[in-house]
Structure formats: structure tokens, C-alpha cells
């Protein structure tokens, strides 16, 4: 162990998770010594001793005696008779206990991901990516993974309503038909979020044809108006092209969070990661520059990130254009930013035809400039493909603004609303409300009483997508089909069927859909095949094509940008969180509890400020030991009030490095109407977070999500608790601090001396037998054989973008409870896999970020196993660290002794498994209780035990999937397939969910398995976390390589904790 201590003394901590760790502060050191962040509830600690406690020894004995006797009597009584009720008529394709997978499509407000729904005994319980889709290739996002929970949401509307009163579907049809007939020729408006389903569009046009003068308005909460209109100006196409990040050697993002929330993150993450995979023999990778205002997921993944003010977005684009054209980055005062733009421009110009610039701005002028840059880079036909358009977002804000005007003028006879929720997401919600009140007939198809549905006379709830038929065309020519996986749970109906009915069509939507596709696919056989695949792809991938660029509008755009308002002292930017989006995720407990990739905060929105601003605004200097501790150790945070144009909001402030120093950020999507579900309200009955959509404004045609000059002041309100994860997940042993959890280096370093990490490892382990013999010689414990299978996992930190899909997939697969904000703030979070976010670098306002997914490492010499007094955690001959709930007595010694802090303890009865109501009420959050009702429990995976109070749990490597996969191979009398020729008997849940295939899992004993291949072909980047402890993890990581020019001193041979 002396070696370990030496290293700590020798080397500075280059990676840090928290400010305390950066400063090695008192609180951080103290926290490292304590396993549990709060005092354990030992009674009578002070004064009087044990016998003065409310439950002294005699009481204890009484209870013990009574409970033993009670248990004996209870158990001795007659065994309850259980019924076993088979089907009356068993459907041929359902075998009880065997899961079926149905290809369907996740569709939400224009987002489309082809998926497979795992259906057990008639209940969809898990969403997996559909590998037949060339767009997503089997990848998913956190929101896709969580969508199955929405199906069983108890806040779903169970029947149609009129004025809030229940109505039958027939009565609703009759009444609405009568009202439609009575509007007297006034136009009907169908207001939706982006619709990219060809049949739905047809049904809409049929409906509109019946009511002349009517129109269809598409409205996206966070629209891409700027891009759509700029493309119309530049290319004559009112559309969005396909972006091909996989063809780009240099990517420049200007505020476009394309790995998290922008346009089609699953698709882009997949493309982007292709060029981030490294062939160790010939290491090349793409280069990504990112310019942004507050730290985003995409910016954190960038090779180089530069910060600018929100009002400067246009100026950055113009400067970049000028620099690409060889005129230098003009008009930028910040020297760092200027240098960054010039550097990016140089790289872009050097890679014409393999360069791409994307921008998240909703300003047409900025997007015109971006189009000009891309044209100068010859991106058309290479990295921008106009042969296939992206149909995810088609709403143009001006159209909706016109509708609001018309409604307020009384010029609209009826509004039918699907998907869109403008009463919440439109910046001027009052106008929407007053407009709706002037419309004679208002119908919402919302599945729950959202802010807009509340204002509508009728609500005819739509089915969940897992109960629906449908299709989607996310990109032109690429179809994804939707089929129901369960009968509608409630008296709901697909909204297309309602439309057809009200337009007088004789068919329902299913036959409409079939008629449409039978004609295209040549009848039933083609349809069945397509339905089984879930996707219809073009026979041959269309060749990428550009479009003729019309640069006529560029000078005007540039002058408009130059003339735009300059920013004030502090600027505000509104951003979307990966999990919550524009508020769609707010109803989902899994998404609310998923930690934000950067802030690691759950269950709230907050004001994001930079460390520099923190000094002046909340009086916290994060490099100051005492102040940083005071800020960081205690979950309650100071609140600040943000004022702009009569709008005011008071929210807690979080210091997030990577935020421009004059900019603050607040996430939209919070402060929802409480009626939309338990996940949207706190235990105190307030809304979760606060709504900041009112801070947005309409700028010409598009809504802009920033304010150039806001007034920010420290609020007198009491501190507010933000439940953050991660900061508590470190623990030091008396032997020394944790070092080398994670490794990172630059591409240049890697090219120069690729075997640095390997040499390091060899050097470090040399005294213990070297790499080869370390396993056997580095320990006093015995060696145990893994005769057949040896499970192993590899996580490539280069391709992991930190999106969190795996976290939610693990929730769904392993019945992981939602614990609620109060418990998270007490560090009782239950996630089996967490994505650690590490900072490094000298610039505290703009540090480098690395994400490292950390789950149980399944150590072959596991420290947790040795200390369990009842052997409830032990090792299998397949290398898995097994956790046996029924043996566990809850000593927590294992969690104490785990160097990775991946074990989770059931502090309360989160799941209702105890069946003692006393253990739940008053101890756990309403939302956790809500997860235990009969409806929501339908989402549970029946193959995984629901854990009760007082037991430890952790990642099991999806033991149920391993068993199922092995059995499949055994039954088919063949060896297990784990990735050879991309054939898989099993994929663990996190691996399946990952959009970038960063996680590989399989049998490491099999030379041809994917995991063995991965380890063999990446000997230089491979490392195990905390390898020197001789815990022998079965999870390995591949070091993060950043494509930076300079041999960054902070990156070189960087070691971190």
C-alpha cells in the first residue's frame, strides 16, 4: 500500500468531481472518511446510554419474543390457497413467462425512434432499440427508455371529458360533431406538434377538406424555425436536411446540443461516435469545436469548447464565416473566443468536404450565415445531405403566433389540439388562454390534464404509443411503423380515429393505415413483413446530395446580426435538459430522478452560474476551502431572483463550471401543472421547479430562448434544497485516496507514445508480479477458476457521451425504485449505474469534462465479499459478484468496503415489498408511493426480485438476461454467441440502450467474443479503475482521447480521482 500513498503524494489530483475535491477541502477529506453522509440513527448516543432510549433492551427482547411467536403462529396457520387460472383460450403466440418483442415506434412531438417493446404476459415492460433502423441502429435515449412508464401513469386520463365531466366516447363524438356543424363556417384549426406520420397527415387533410378554410398548424415548444426559414432563403427548401456527422472530420457546434436535445440526438450521437472510435494501430478521430453559453452535454464532449454570451451567437457565426473565408474572426472582443474561432475556422477550411457547422440558434439570420459557412466548406452532399430531409421539427413559430392572434380576434371556430401544449410552452401563455376562451369549440387529445387541456372544453384522450397503430417518417423515405403492444388500458382512442370519425369517414384509423400501406407494400404479406421489422427502408441508401446555395441573403443577415441588441451585464439563456426536454419528461419519475449529465441534480431546475459569477452573486469562491465546503456539502443552496421585462423568478443557484461568466442558464420544462402527475409535484404539494418559458420572446419569426439583459440579485428567501448525486460517492481508505479511477489523454500524446498507459500499469504492478501475474501474485487470497464463462464489460470513454440512456434502461430492467427528491438529497439514490462527471484543466470557468459510467465492477477479488458476515454477497464461477437479497441482513459493511461506491441500500420500503404500510407512510415520498400502485407496478420486470427494506442491492450484470441468454444457447445445443459476427444471445440493458455502442459485454473466455476482441484490439487504452487495489474488476475502460493540438500539460499522463 505504500505505493498507493506515494502516488498520492507525488501527483496532484488532475480530475475532480467536486470543488471540495479540487481544493482537497476539509469537508471533502472528512467525507472521504465517512461512508454515510448523515449520522446513522443510533439511539441514545448522547446521555443516558442505551437504556434511556425509547426502546431499551427489555422492550427489544419483548418485541423479539413477540415477533418470533407471531411469525411462528402466522407461518403455522393454514397455507393460503392460491389459484392458478389459465387462459380460457390461449392465443397461440403468447406463452406465459416468455417475453415477446414487438417492433414499434416511439413518437413524441416529432421525435421518432424505432424500438422493440418487450412484452411479458401481455404487458410491455421494457423498450429496446430496433437494430433494423439505419437511423438509430438500435440506439435509444433516456426519454425513449422511460416512455414505457408513461403507459402505466396513474395520472392518465381514463375517459373523455366535457368541461371536466366524464363522457362516453359515443357521447363525445355526437356532441363534438354537433358543435362542429354549428360553428357556421368559421375555420377549424388542427394544432399539433410536428407530425411526420404520412397517414396522419392524410387523415388531417381529409378532415380539413371537410371544413373549408381550415388549416393545420404545427407548433413545437422549442422550434427550429430559424433553420427552416433560413433553408428556404438559402436553398429554396422549407425543410431541414440530413446531417451526416459520420462524414465529418471537423464538427463545429454553435449552441447546438446535438448529442442531448437538438433535432435527433440518438441519430447524431450514433454518427458522431463513429468518428470518435479509435483504431489503436492507426489512431485518427474527428475533431469537435463547440461554442456555447452554458455547459451542455455536447459542449462537454467537444475536443475544445469556447464560451460566449447568448447575444453573441450571431457574431460568433459571422466571425466564423469571415475566418473560414480568410478574413479573420472580426467583431469578437474576447481573445480566447477569438482564437478559438480562428482555430476552428482553420481546421474547417483544411477539411473542406468533410466539415460541418451546426447551430442551435432560432434566428433566421444566424442560420443563413451558418448555411453560408457550410456552403463555403462544401458540406452539401457530404456532411449535409439534401436527398433525405429530416422531418423531426417542422413547426414555424410565426404560424402559431398568427393563430394566437386569430383566436384572440375571434376568427377561429374550433381548435383541435394534439401534442402541442402552448398554454405552458408559449412565452405568452396568457394570450393563449384568452385566445382559447374565445374559440367556440376547443378539443384536446392530451392523454392527461395538461395546461392546455385544462383550457379546452372537450378532452378526448389519445392512446399511449404502445397502445396505438401508426407510422412515422422521421426522414424522407425512411418509415417506422407503430403497432399496439397492449389493449388500451382506459377508455381512450387514437386521435387519428377521432379525426376520421369527425370528418365523416367510415373507416377507423387502423383500416385507413392498412389501406395506405397495402397499396404501397403490395398487400398483406408486405405489410406483415414491414410490421414485423418495424421499419421500411429505401431499397438502396439514396446518394447524398447537396442543394444549390443562394447566398443573396447573407449580407442582409450579417448586417441584421451586427445591428442586433448587445448584451447587458448578465444574460439569461433557457436550455432544455436531456431528460425533461420542453417539459415532456416532467411527468415521468424515472426522468425526474435521472441526474442531469452536468449538474448531477435531480428533481429541480435552478439557475446555472459560473464560478466567477458565484463570487459576486452568492459570495462563494469555489477555490476557497471554507466557502466551497459551505456551498457544496449542504444540499440547501442560496436562491437568486432573476428579473426581465416584468417577469421574475426565484430559484436556487448552482455553480456549474463551463458557463460563460456573464451568463446564467435556467432549464425549461419545470413548474408544470400539478395535475399532470405525481412526478410534477413535490411532497409539499408545490410544482417541481419553476416555469421559465415566459422569459422567451418572439423575435421576428422565431421564439428566442435568451434574454440579453436580465437583473439578477441574491434573494432573501431561505436556502432551497437541490438533490444532487455523485458528490457523495467517494470514499477513501486509511491507506490512501482513490486515484486513477479514470484516465484521459490527447490524441497527439497517444500518437507519440501510445503505450503510456500500458507502461504505467506495468510499472505500477511490477512489484506484484507485473500485469501477467498480478492476479495470482498480488494477493494473499486464493485464485479461483472461471471454467466456462467469464463475464466482462468494456466501456469506451471515447464514445460515451454521457446521455443517461443506460441509467434509465437499468431502472426499467432491474425494477430500481424511484426514491424521490427528499431521499436523493439524503444521498439515498438507488441507481445501479451512474455516470460520473469529471472536470480537469486549469480554467475553472471552462474545464474539460469526461464522463465515466460506473456500475458494480464485479471485482474478481471483491472487497465487499470478504466483509459480509452472512455471505449475502459472493462470487460466481462466471466472475459475477452476486448479491443475494434474501440473505442480506443489512449490515452495509459491503457498501463500506466498496472502493467504487456502487452499492445501494434500501433505507426505506421504497417498493412496498415489505407489505407493512407502517414502513412507508411518512418515510418515503408521494411519488415513490405512487410507483407502488397496482397500475404502475405493471411495469415491473417479473424476472427480477423487488427488494424490500433493509437490503443492499447493486448492478447484477443483468443476471436475468445472462441466464436467459445461456438457456437459449443450451436449448439450441450450441455455444453462446456474445458478439462474434455481431450475433448476440444476450445484451445487458445498458449496452442495449447505448446509442453509441460504448458498452460491450460478453464472455471474456471466448476468444472471438466482442469483449475479447475489444480488449485485444485496444491494449494501449485499456485500464481498470483502481487496478492497484487488486480488486480485479471485470469491467474495463478504454481511456478518453481528446483531439487537441497542443500537448496539454494538464492532460499529459493525467491521473485523477
Amino acid at each position, binding site marked *: 500500500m505504500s505505493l498507493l500513498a506515494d502516488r498520492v503524494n507525488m501527483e496532484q489530483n488532475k480530475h475532480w468531481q467536486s470543488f471540495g475535491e479540487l481544493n482537497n477541502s476539509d469537508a471533502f477529506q472528512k467525507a472521504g472518511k465517512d461512508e454515510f453522509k448523515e449520522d446513522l440513527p443510533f439511539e441514545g448516543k448522547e446521555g443516558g446510554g442505551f437504556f434511556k432510549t425509547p426502546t431499551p433492551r427489555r422492550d427489544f427482547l419483548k418485541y423479539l419474543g413477540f415477533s418470533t411467536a407471531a411469525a411462528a403462529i402466522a407461518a403455522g396457520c393454514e397455507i393460503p390457497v392460491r389459484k392458478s387460472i389459465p387462459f380460457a383460450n390461449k392465443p397461440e403466440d403468447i406463452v406465459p413467462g416468455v417475453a415477446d418483442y414487438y417492433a414499434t415506434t416511439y413518437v413524441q412531438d416529432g421525435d421518432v425512434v424505432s424500438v422493440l417493446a418487450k412484452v411479458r404476459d401481455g404487458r410491455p415492460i421494457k423498450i429496446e432499440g430496433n437494430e433494423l433502423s439505419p437511423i438509430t441502429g438500435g440506439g435509444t435515449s433516456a426519454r425513449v427508455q422511460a416512455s414505457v412508464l408513461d403507459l402505466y401513469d396513474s395520472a392518465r386520463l381514463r375517459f373523455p371529458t366535457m368541461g371536466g365531466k366524464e363522457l362516453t366516447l359515443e357521447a363525445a363524438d355526437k356532441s363534438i360533431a354537433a358543435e362542429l356543424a354549428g360553428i357556421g363556417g368559421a375555420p377549424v384549426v388542427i394544432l399539433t406538434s410536428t407530425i411526420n406520420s404520412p397517414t396522419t397527415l392524410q387523415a388531417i387533410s381529409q378532415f380539413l377538406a371537410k371544413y373549408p378554410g381550415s388549416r393545420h398548424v404545427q407548433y413545437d415548444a422549442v422550434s427550429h424555425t430559424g433553420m427552416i426559414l433560413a433553408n428556404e432563403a438559402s436553398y429554396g427548401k422549407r425543410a431541414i436536411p440530413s446531417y451526416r456527422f459520420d462524414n465529418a472530420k471537423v464538427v463545429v457546434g454553435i449552441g447546438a446540443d446535438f448529442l442531448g436535445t437538438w433535432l435527433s440526438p440518438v441519430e447524431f450521437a450514433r454518427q458522431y461516435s463513429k468518428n470518435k472510435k479509435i483504431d489503436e494501430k492507426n489512431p485518427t478521430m474527428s475533431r469537435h469545436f463547440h461554442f456555447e453559453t452554458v455547459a451542455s452535454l455536447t459542449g462537454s464532449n467537444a475536443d475544445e469548447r469556447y464560451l460566449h454570451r447568448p447575444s453573441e451567437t450571431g457574431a460568433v457565426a459571422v466571425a466564423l464565416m469571415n475566418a473560414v473565408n480568410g478574413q479573420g474572426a472580426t467583431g469578437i472582443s474576447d481573445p480566447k473566443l477569438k482564437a478559438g474561432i480562428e482555430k476552428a475556422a482553420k481546421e474547417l477550411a483544411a477539411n473542406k468536404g468533410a466539415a460541418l457547422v451546426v447551430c442551435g440558434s432560432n434566428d433566421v439570420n444566424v442560420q443563413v450565415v451558418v448555411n453560408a459557412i457550410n456552403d463555403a466548406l462544401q458540406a452539401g452532399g457530404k456532411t449535409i445531405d439534401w436527398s433525405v430531409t429530416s422531418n423531426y421539427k417542422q413547426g414555424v413559430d410565426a404560424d402559431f403566433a398568427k393563430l394566437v392572434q386569430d383566436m384572440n380576434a375571434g376568427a377561429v371556430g374550433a381548435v383541435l389540439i394534439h401534442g402541442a401544449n402552448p398554454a405552458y410552452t408559449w412565452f405568452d401563455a396568457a394570450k393563449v388562454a384568452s385566445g382559447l376562451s374565445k374559440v367556440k369549440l376547443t378539443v384536446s387529445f392530451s392523454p392527461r390534464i395538461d395546461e392546455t387541456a385544462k383550457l379546452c372544453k372537450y378532452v378526448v384522450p389519445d392512446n399511449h404509443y404502445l397502445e396505438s397503430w401508426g407510422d412515422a417518417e422521421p426522414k424522407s423515405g425512411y418509415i417506422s411503423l407503430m403497432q399496439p403492444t397492449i389493449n388500451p388500458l382506459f377508455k381512450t382512442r387514437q386521435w387519428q380515429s377521432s379525426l376520421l370519425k369527425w370528418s365523416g369517414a367510415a373507416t377507423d384509423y387502423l383500416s385507413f393505415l392498412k389501406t395506405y400501406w397495402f397499396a404501397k407494400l403490395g398487400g398483406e404479406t408486405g405489410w406483415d413483413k414491414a410490421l414485423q421489422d418495424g421499419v421500411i427502408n429505401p431499397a438502396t441508401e439514396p446518394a447524398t446530395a447537396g442543394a444549390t446555395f443562394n447566398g443573396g441573403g447573407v449580407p442582409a443577415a450579417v448586417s441584421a446580426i451586427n445591428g442586433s441588441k448587445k448584451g447587458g451585464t448578465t444574460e439569461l439563456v433557457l436550455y432544455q435538459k436531456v431528460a425533461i426536454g420542453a417539459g415532456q419528461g416532467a411527468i415521468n419519475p424515472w426522468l425526474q430522478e435521472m441526474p442531469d449529465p452536468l449538474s448531477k441534480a435531480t428533481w429541480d431546475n435552478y439557475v446555472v452560474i459560473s464560478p466567477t459569477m458565484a463570487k459576486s452573486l452568492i459570495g462563494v469562491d469555489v477555490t476557497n476551502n471554507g466557502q466551497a465546503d459551505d456551498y457544496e456539502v449542504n444540499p440547501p443552496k442560496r436562491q437568486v431572483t432573476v428579473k426581465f421585462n416584468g417577469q421574475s423568478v426565484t430559484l436556487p443557484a448552482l455553480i456549474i463550471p463551463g458557463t460563460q461568466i456573464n451568463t446564467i442558464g435556467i432549464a425549461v420544462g419545470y413548474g408544470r401543472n400539478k395535475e399532470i402527475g405525481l412526478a410534477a409535484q413535490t411532497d409539499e404539494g408545490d410544482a417541481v421547479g419553476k416555469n421559465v418559458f415566459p422569459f422567451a420572446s418572439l423575435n421576428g419569426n422565431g421564439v428566442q430562448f435568451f434574454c440579453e439583459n436580465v437583473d439578477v440579485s441574491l434573494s432573501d428567501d431561505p436556502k432551497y434544497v437541490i438533490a444532487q448525486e455523485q458528490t457523495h460517492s467517494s470514499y477513501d481508505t486509511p491507506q490512501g485516496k482513490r486515484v486513477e479511477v479514470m484516465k484521459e489523454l490527447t490524441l497527439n500524446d497517444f500518437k507519440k507514445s501510445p503505450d503510456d498507459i500500458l507502461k504505467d500499469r506495468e510499472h505500477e504492478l511490477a512489484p506484484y508480479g507485473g500485469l501477467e501475474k498480478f492476479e495470482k501474485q498480488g494477493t494473499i487470497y486464493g485464485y479461483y477458476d472461471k471454467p466456462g464463462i467469464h463475464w466482462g464489460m468494456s466501456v469506451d470513454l471515447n464514445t460515451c457521451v454521457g446521455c443517461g440512456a443506460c441509467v434509465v434502461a437499468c431502472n426499467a430492467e432491474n425494477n430500481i425504485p424511484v426514491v424521490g427528491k427528499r431521499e436523493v438529497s439524503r444521498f439515498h439514490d438507488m441507481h445501479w449505474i451512474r455516470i460520473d462527471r469529471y472536470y480537469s484543466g486549469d480554467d475553472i470557468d471552462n474545464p474539460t469534462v469526461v464522463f465515466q459510467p460506473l456500475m458494480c465492477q464485479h471485482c474478481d477479488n471483491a472487497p465487499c465479499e470478504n466483509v459480509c458476515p452472512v455471505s449475502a454477497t459472493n462470487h*460466481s464461477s462466471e466472475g459475477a459478484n452476486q448479491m443475494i437479497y434474501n440473505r442480506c441482513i443489512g449490515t452495509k459493511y459491503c457498501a463500506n468496503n466498496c472502493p467504487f461506491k456502487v452499492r445501494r441500500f434500501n433505507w426505506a420500503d421504497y417498493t412496498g415489498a415489505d407489505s407493512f404500510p407502517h414502513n412507508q407512510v411518512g418515510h418515503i415520498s408521494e411519488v415513490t408511493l405512487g410507483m407502488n400502485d397496482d397500475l404502475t407496478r405493471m411495469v415491473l420486470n417479473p424476472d427480477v426480485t423487488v427488494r424490500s427494506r433493509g437490503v443492499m442491492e447493486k448492478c447484477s450484470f443483468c*443476471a436475468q438476461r445472462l441466464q436467459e441468454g445461456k438457456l437459449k444457447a443450451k436449448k439450441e445445443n450450441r*455455444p453462446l454467441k456474445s458478439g462474434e459476427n455481431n450475433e448476440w444471445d444476450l445484451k445487458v440493458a445498458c449496452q442495449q440502450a447505448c446509442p453509441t455502442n460504448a458498452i460491450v459485454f460478453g464472455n471474456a473466455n471466448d476468444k472471438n467474443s466482442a469483449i475479447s476482441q475489444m480488449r485485444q484490439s485496444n491494449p494501449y487504452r485499456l485500464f481498470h479503475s483502481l487496478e492497484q487495489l487488486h480488486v480485479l474488476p471485470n469491467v474495463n475502460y478504454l481511456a478518453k482521447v481528446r483531439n487537441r493540438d497542443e500537448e496539454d500539460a494538464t492532460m499529459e499522463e493525467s491521473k485523477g480521482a
Partner: protein
Amino acid sequence: MTHFRSIAAKLTFGLVFTFLFLFSGHLCAQGTGNAANGKTLFQANCTSCHAMEKEILGPALMGAVERWPDKKMLHNWIQHNPGVIAAKYPYAMGVVEKYKSKGAMTDFNGTLKSQDVDDIIAYIGSYVPPVAGTNPVQPGQPEGDNTLLFGILTLVLAIITFVLLQVNANLKKLADDKSGVPAEEPVSFWKNKAYIAFGTVIIFLVGGYYTVMGAIGLGRTQHFQPKQPIFYSHKVHAGVNQVNCMYCHIGTYQGKQATIPSVNICMNCHMAIKEYNGTAKLYTAEGEEVNGTAEIQKLYSYAGYTAGQTWDATKAKPIEWVRIHNLPDHVYFNHSQHVVAGKVQCQTCHGEITKMDEVYQFAPLSMGWCINCHRTTKVHFTDNSFYSIYEKFQDKIKNHAMDSVTVENIGGTECQKCHY
């Protein structure tokens, strides 16, 4: 003696069984059909209507190959019987006439390939009835229970010891009296501290034993034999009529649950079999006689079926059977794992189901019972190429350093194989 007999019986059976398999394997290698495959096909497609030695809906098939004058016609008949009827092949017409009341045979045209039919014919041709007097499997058959005998012997010996001790004491007293040694007043044995202490220990031991055994048995339901809504006799179905277990318990091959058959599976046969006319009378566990035909009527009422009319399957109501075998929620058990991969006979865990009218829980279904089996059971190590990845064991077997691999060897007693 009994012991030897049972071993002999097992041996005989084992030999016969092996021969059957070996020979059928051989036959098929030479002939046109594969009898082993035929057996699978037979059980999957034919057993609902046919048994080998008994008429069910269709004729008993043992000897059918010899009975048919033209083998080719038999082949055609199995595959596509309407064609043979249309051709008015005389033997077939006889069969049709005889079984007219039971309905027409299913047409397998399209479902069975020509080779499949050859396989089935090979299986039928090679079928040899099980040797009378031997039981297919005798799992856990108590091999003569001598506990009672030993108990009686112990008791007798204890009484003799006690009597002898008393006699000894009396004789000592007489001798002492005679020699004039002053003797203490004899203590009667119920006041004798030694006896009391001895008795207490015995009571403690025996009482303790039963308490512990009782406590272990709590929550276990071995021998549980509830009354079911329909007196369904496994003996009649699986025993006398040799219906394959998997014909009804279809989940056994596919998944974790064996599944209790749904009403439509019952009705597959019972559309035609309207009354019980078996030779043996049926009795409940309490000894009451059961009217089999009335029980079939109960099925009809669940199925919503009126004899003579077409059955509308949608009218069926599920039957609420009483569940006998219950495992705790934290145990994962998979039938197909054991039956398909492990090739374990149903009877190993469920007892001699073919002799049970009413089913009872044969095995304790305790963890110790599972583990014991996993310790001793050998996996099909060389037959199943899944195990090829266990190179070390494969080498050992090749070098005869190991003769077999047990479930335990490959990790079958590790916690997370059943608890997750």
C-alpha cells in the same frame, strides 16, 4: 432382498430403454426415417388423438405399419388423408368407416414434410411397449421403510433394559438383605433422579427434533393435495391413455412456466371424448367414487359447450385450479431449463404423476432439495455443444481425469443462478 429386486428392475428397464434408443437410432440410420425425430413429431402432432397401445380418438398405432398393406399409402394417409379418401383406397375407407363418429383426421398437408412422415412411420414401426412390471421411472421410491421396525426394536430393548435394571436392583437389595448389609430404602423409579434426568433429556431431544423439523417444514406444502374444481385424473390421461405431458403443458419446452392447459386445449380432445368409459373406477383421495362423465360435463360448462353443437371458443370461461406447486417470489425456476437443456423427466420432481388421480406435491421444493439434485445431477456435457466453452472440463473428460460434470461443477449451486 427388496432392494435387489428394485435394482434389478431398474437395470432391466434401463437396458430396455437404452436398446430402444440405440436400435431406433440404428434403424433410422439405415432406413428412411429417423425414429428419434419421429418421436418428437409424434408427440407434438399425434398424441392428442392417438396412443400406441390404446384407442383414443383414432386407432392405436402400434403395428399400424404392419397393418397397412401399402406403406406408400400409409405415408400419404398421414400426410394428406383427404387425398387417400378421395382415391377411395380400401383399407383407408375401412378406417374412416370405423372411426366415423370420432371425426375426421387432421390434414397435415403443409405442416408435415415428407421426411417428417417417414420419421413418424419409423418411430411407429420401431415402437416396443415398455416391459410389463417395470415402471418407467421410480424417482425417490421409498426402498422399504424400516423406521417402524427399528422403532419397535428400540422400544423393546429399552423396556428390557429397564426391566433388567429393576431386576438387578431388586436382586441387589435381596442380596444385601440376606448378607445383612443395611440398605437404603429403595427409591421408586419415578422418583429416581437418574431416571428423571434421562427422561428429560429424551423428551428434550425428541421434542426438539420434531420442533425443528416442523419449523423447517413451515411454509412448505409437501403432500399438499387440494380438491380441484374438476376431478381431473392424470392417471387416466397421462397414465392409461399415455397423453404426452407436453401436449397439455405446452410451456414446459418454451419457458419458465409449464402452464396449466387452457380450456381450448382440453376441448381439442373432449369435443369427441364425451364420456368416461375407462375400465378402472375413479376415486377421490377420500375414497368417494367419481363419475368421470359428469366431470367431463363440468368441463363443458366451463367451455360453454353443448354436445352436438359447434363450440364457440369465445364462450369459454377459465377454470380456477388450485395451485399446488408454489415457489417463493425470490426463486427463479425455469421448466425449459430443466426439461429441454437438462433433459430431466417430469417425474423426478413431480413424482409418479401417471399414477395420481388427484395430484399432490411430491417433492418438498425446498432449497436443500434443489441443491442436492444440482450436486449430483450430471449435465449433458458432451452432447450439448454449449458446454464446449468449458475447455478445462472437456480436456479432463478426454483424459479421463473426470468422468462427468455435475450441475454444481458448472456453477449450478451458486446463489445467482436462481435468485436475482
